[in-house]
């Protein structure tokens, strides 16, 4: 079962729609007690301050840690990815859950022009990469060896690529497009808004 953490933000609905279209079982959940074995997707559109406040209200951090330690996969998307890092520069600096390692931080992408990274960029991922990162897809339905296409980004803050296994953002190599540590995966782009290629990515990692 895929659990989609639903804190009332828009893209939980988009992720649910996408999973519907590719035929994966899912449930939108809002309390830790509702977690099912399998995969937890932490979507996120918005600011880290509001998002972290919502996570703290129900003590999600502890539950997510336990869930991953029990062998389940956790995938954070965009702001959900930032929430998995140790610290975010957003909202005047904020401590986050830190599941991707204590050195993994979120910083502003374009400090000089204060612009977001909104648009499409090329993306490549292979089975070899997932094996190297020891990522075991829960469903493992995809038989593809690699995927190449374009993905949609919409963010002002990005995760600094670290010692973890990661794929950098094309032409912004300093920032991670996808990062894995243990059972945690962070994705900066929006697979649910990356059309047919986004659906293939979800099938590849789920």
């Amino acid at each position: 079962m895929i659990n989609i953490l639903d804190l009332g933000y828009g893209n939980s609905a988009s992720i649910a729609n996408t999973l519907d279209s590719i035929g994966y079982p899912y449930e939108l959940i809002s309390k830790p007690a509702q977690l099912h074995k399998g995969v937890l997707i932490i979507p996120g559109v918005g600011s880290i301050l509001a998002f972290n406040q919502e996570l703290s209200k129900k003590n999600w951090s502890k539950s997510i840690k336990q869930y991953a330690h029990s062998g389940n996969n956790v995938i954070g998307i965009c702001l959900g990815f930032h929430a998995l890092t140790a610290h975010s520069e957003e909202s005047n600096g904020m401590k986050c859950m830190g599941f991707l390692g204590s050195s993994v931080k979120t910083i502003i992408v374009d400090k000089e022009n204060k612009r977001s990274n909104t648009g499409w960029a090329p993306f490549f991922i292979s089975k070899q990469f997932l094996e190297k990162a020891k990522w075991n897809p829960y469903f493992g339905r995809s038989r593809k060896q690699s995927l190449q296409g374009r993905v949609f980004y919409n963010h002002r803050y990005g995760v600094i690529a670290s010692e973890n296994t990661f794929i950098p953002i094309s032409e912004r190599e300093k920032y991670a497009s996808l990062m894995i540590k243990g059972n945690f995966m962070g994705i900066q782009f929006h697979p649910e808004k990356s059309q047919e290629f986004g659906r293939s990515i979800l099938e590849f990692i789920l």
Partner: protein
Amino acid sequence: MRVGASILLINGYCYQSYSWSYTRPLGSLKKVLSFLDKYEVDEICITRPIKGSDNPSVLANDLRAIRSSSCSSPLSFGGGIRSLASLKNLQQLPVERLHFSNAFFNMNSRLINKVKNQYGKQAIVASVPVKLVNGQLFFYDSPAKNFKILSNKIISYIKDNADEVLIIDTQNEGINNSFNFDILDGIDLPLNKLMITGGIGQKQISFAKELGLISCLIDNRILHRENFMKREL
């Protein structure tokens, strides 16, 4: 540069607009989005053209229509988000970005800051419907239903608070290859923050690319000349 589509949403149905005055029906939002999704356009901008006061039940219908669509392309939405109360209605809306006109023209910092905190600045687009008359730029004030002078103060407020700015050429909307680039001379905003719509054709797209604009939204030939659009994209 992104190349997307711009559509109007009126009571759950999509329309194409001409010169800010006439509309042509395109069908239900669900169908329109499913076609545009199939074409893999770079983004889709949904606008509710509110002239005067908004009707809450129509807004609720429109939001319901967006919620029930299953679109896997990037979506942005605007039209009728004028207060903190209307912001509450947007929960669970499957859009990445929100467009604001009135909030920028009135420099409504309470609303803009609330959106920044709730959705992040990357989600804020200033939508500026304009007309150029004798070198003077006017914006459309939708509650007042008329055009007013676009002041430097408003432009500066937009510059500070919007992530990107959508310039709508109201005089050339719906007309092929007619977007008036002179409009951009009157707006002191960085070109790489600007999106344009209103009379977008192949020539406009090429020129916008040369200028370094961030996005062109095709407003005409949406769906009723699908093959033409497909070639263009």
